[in-house]
């Protein structure tokens, strides 16, 4: 994703104040320095009236501003060049294309992650993979909601899934999933950019969602609609402290808890759809 950076040169006492006012605008993040403030906004969220807002601020606070376009880049390249393969129990090994293959594991997945999430290094991905190990995925339809690198969709394919839909709202993740599918082979995939609405009225037997608490809480009722009765939902990307909220939302959305596991601060749950529930409008 391309970004604009705005550099505000001003006296030190103005910097926290500018930060507060600019925080009201759709900037993602800031960097405070001694004599200037940097503010960053995705080009997709940039609108002309932001400049009007800045002009208005400039009438009250003395600063000079420069705007720079920052093209999308793989900022993760240094880490990626040195990452070690990940082994999850004796079940699955995740490696990059520059690592030597190993035949010691039932499943081996190739991931060149770039700017997408999911290499198996993170507890939330590891937990999903462990939960998938315990499910019978062969011959099933699978929906990977928030696919990142595509790691979980690729594992589902290797475990024999019949048909897989992988979606993500992040275009870089969709692109990366397609690349990683290319590295691993398989032809049961459909990869799309967007949110739940692009899944249409299809119902799946297994849904995997490694996202975050707020998105999951909001979408769990809608995920009920995307799932066949008695299908399994793997939820990950939230903390142990969020357990009660997640359980409550799942129960009120027609799911029952089958299994859960934690790793560090992270919790992962497997739910089963018990009944149909109308999603919250």
């Amino acid at each position, binding site marked *: *994703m391309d*970004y604009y*950076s705005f550099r505000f040169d001003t006296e030190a*006492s*103005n910097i*926290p*104040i500018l*930060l*507060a*006012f600019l*925080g*009201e605008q759709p*900037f*993602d*993040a*800031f*960097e*405070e320095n001694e004599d200037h403030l*940097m503010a*960053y906004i*995705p080009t997709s969220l940039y609108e002309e009236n932001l400049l009007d*807002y800045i002009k*208005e*601020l400039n*009438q*009250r606070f003395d600063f000079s501003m420069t705007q720079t376009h*920052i093209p*999308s*880049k793989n*900022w*993760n*390249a*240094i*880490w990626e060049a*040195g*990452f070690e393969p990940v082994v999850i129990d004796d079940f699955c090994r995740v490696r990059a294309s520059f690592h030597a293959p190993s035949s010691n594991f039932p499943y081996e997945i190739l991931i060149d*992650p770039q*700017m*997408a*999430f*999911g*290499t198996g*290094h*993170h507890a*939330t991905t590891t937990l999903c993979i462990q939960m998938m190990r315990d499910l019978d995925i062969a011959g099933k339809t699978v929906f990977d909601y928030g696919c990142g690198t595509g790691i979980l969709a690729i594992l589902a394919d290797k475990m024999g899934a019949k048909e897989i839909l992988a979606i993500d709202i992040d275009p870089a993740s969709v692109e990366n999933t397609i690349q990683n599918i290319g590295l691993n082979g398989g032809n049961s995939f459909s990869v799309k950019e967007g949110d739940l609405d692009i899944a249409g009225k299809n119902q799946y037997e297994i849904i995997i969602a490694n996202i*975050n*608490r*707020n998105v999951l809480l909001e979408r769990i009722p809608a995920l009920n609609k995307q799932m066949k009765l008695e299908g399994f939902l793997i939820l990950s*990307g*939230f*903390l142990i402290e*969020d357990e009660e909220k997640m359980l409550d939302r799942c129960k009120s959305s027609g799911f029952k808890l089958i299994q859960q596991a934690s790793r560090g*601060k*992270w919790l992962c749950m497997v739910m089963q759809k018990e009944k149909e529930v109308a999603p919250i409008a």
Partner: protein
Amino acid sequence: MAKEVGGFIKLQVKGGQANPAPPVGPALGAKGVNIMEFCKRFNAETQDKQGKVLPVIITVFTDKSFTFIIKTPPAAVQLLEKAKLKKGSGVPNRDKVGSVTWDDCKAIAEDKMADLNAFSVESGMKMIAGTARSMGLLVKGTPPWETNE
């Protein structure tokens, strides 16, 4: 053996909105840290503060691992929130459209005491009130030390 610190990175990131783009991407990427792991952890820990500007101090170790501390929003951000201003006021000292109370200043001073260069809550409150005025906000009421006289 304790890990060797390779450096500190201080950023202000909106809760739940860390992503691998600038400034997070280049700052962490240059040190060889797995940016995606930071984003996932930061976003998970700030789900209750979605969209709020949060200072985060990241300690990067020489083995490319990291830890981070998320602080409460900066004083000026909290003041704006208290004043419930959707938009800044006009000219400070002349066109004041928002206001905060001394109680607000006290609450923020207590919250930010560790970051303020102040010896007492009272001097912290004066600093916060000064920031409020610089932002164009009225500080309403009488400071507690005057009512006690």
